[in-house]
């Protein structure tokens, strides 16, 4: 049976695949037929996921990579090309938070969050765009956030990084469009993950009040949007930010 979304024969690179949204993206893209190369600081985590996926379908491999480190990213790109021969899809998902009100935010918290999200997305795009440019084909999906559009008290570093990712998405979409490479972003709202579970109950209640659909999003809600943008079904979509936020931002 032909399915609506088919990624059979594609190779997808997913960063931050050890848990949460990234792990769900790996599972979904894999279930749609894609081979998965996933990277994370947590090497054991992605290796375990890759072993689980490989056992029941297309090839998958995990790599221990700090996406903020140029040398590690270059080495990872080489390893993936050697192991898989090509790259069709890149999902820049790796991220962390170090929340604090702006006047109490340390330089380290600012640099760390900006480096992992924004510099990491830049480094990965630079390294993996090359095989896509050669192939004149590819899809890149960057993980943004609604706070990158609307801001969020206590997240100066995170929201600035996500806003930067949106601008980076649009610029790379313009640079690569003539080469058959599409670049889009997904902007989740309040999603139930380990990352949001760390928030206070009060903060979570306050967030739910502003979500018209009245529930937190799931990792599967986000992964579905990523899978769509990564597939040929989104063939005429580039430079866009798809919000997956239950209507929180309209």
């Amino acid at each position, binding site marked *: 049976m032909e399915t609506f979304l088919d990624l059979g024969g594609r190779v997808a690179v997913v960063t931050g695949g050890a848990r949460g949204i990234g792990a769900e993206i790996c599972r979904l893209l894999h279930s749609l037929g894609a081979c998965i190369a996933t990277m994370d600081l947590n090497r054991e985590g992605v290796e375990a996921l890759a072993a689980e996926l490989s056992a029941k379908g297309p090839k998958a491999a995990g790599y221990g990579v700090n996406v903020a480190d140029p040398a590690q990213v270059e080495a990872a790109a080489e390893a993936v090309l050697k192991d898989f021969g090509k790259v069709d899809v890149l999902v820049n998902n790796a991220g962390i938070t170090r929340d604090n009100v702006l006047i109490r935010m340390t330089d380290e918290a600012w640099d760390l969050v900006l480096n992992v999200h924004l510099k990491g997305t830049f480094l990965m795009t630079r390294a993996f765009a*090359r095989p896509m*440019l050669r192939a004149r084909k590819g899809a890149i999906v960057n993980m943004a956030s609604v706070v990158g559009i609307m801001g969020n008290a206590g997240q100066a570093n995170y929201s600035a990084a996500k806003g930067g990712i949106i601008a980076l998405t649009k610029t790379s979409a313009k*640079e*690569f469009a*003539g*080469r058959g490479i599409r670049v889009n972003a997904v902007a989740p709202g309040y999603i139930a993950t380990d990352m949001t579970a760390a928030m206070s109950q009060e903060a979570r209640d306050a967030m739910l009040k502003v979500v018209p659909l009245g529930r937190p999003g799931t990792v599967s809600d986000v992964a579905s949007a990523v899978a769509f943008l990564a597939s040929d079904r989104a063939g005429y979509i580039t430079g866009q930010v798809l919000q997956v936020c239950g209507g929180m931002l309209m």
Partner: protein
Amino acid sequence: MAEENVKEKVVDIICKLLEVPREKVTMEARYAEDLGADSLDTAELVLEFEDVFKISVPEDAEGRIRTVGETVKFIEEELAKKKAMAS
């Protein structure tokens, strides 16, 4: 690498990447004006030259290289420098 060889390889790479016929790729041909290359094309060419000839092209050199002939000359000089360092 012999001189003719560098020239041949450079022309090969340009033809393939820019999808232009061989006769257009003269030593005097300018990338933008004569071969229709945009900035991403030239960036891709630089990466390809770096890979194939195992040299590194500094950013300031990119601005100085405007024609196919200048490219061949630059690569030959870099290869000569490398050879001199190795011996």
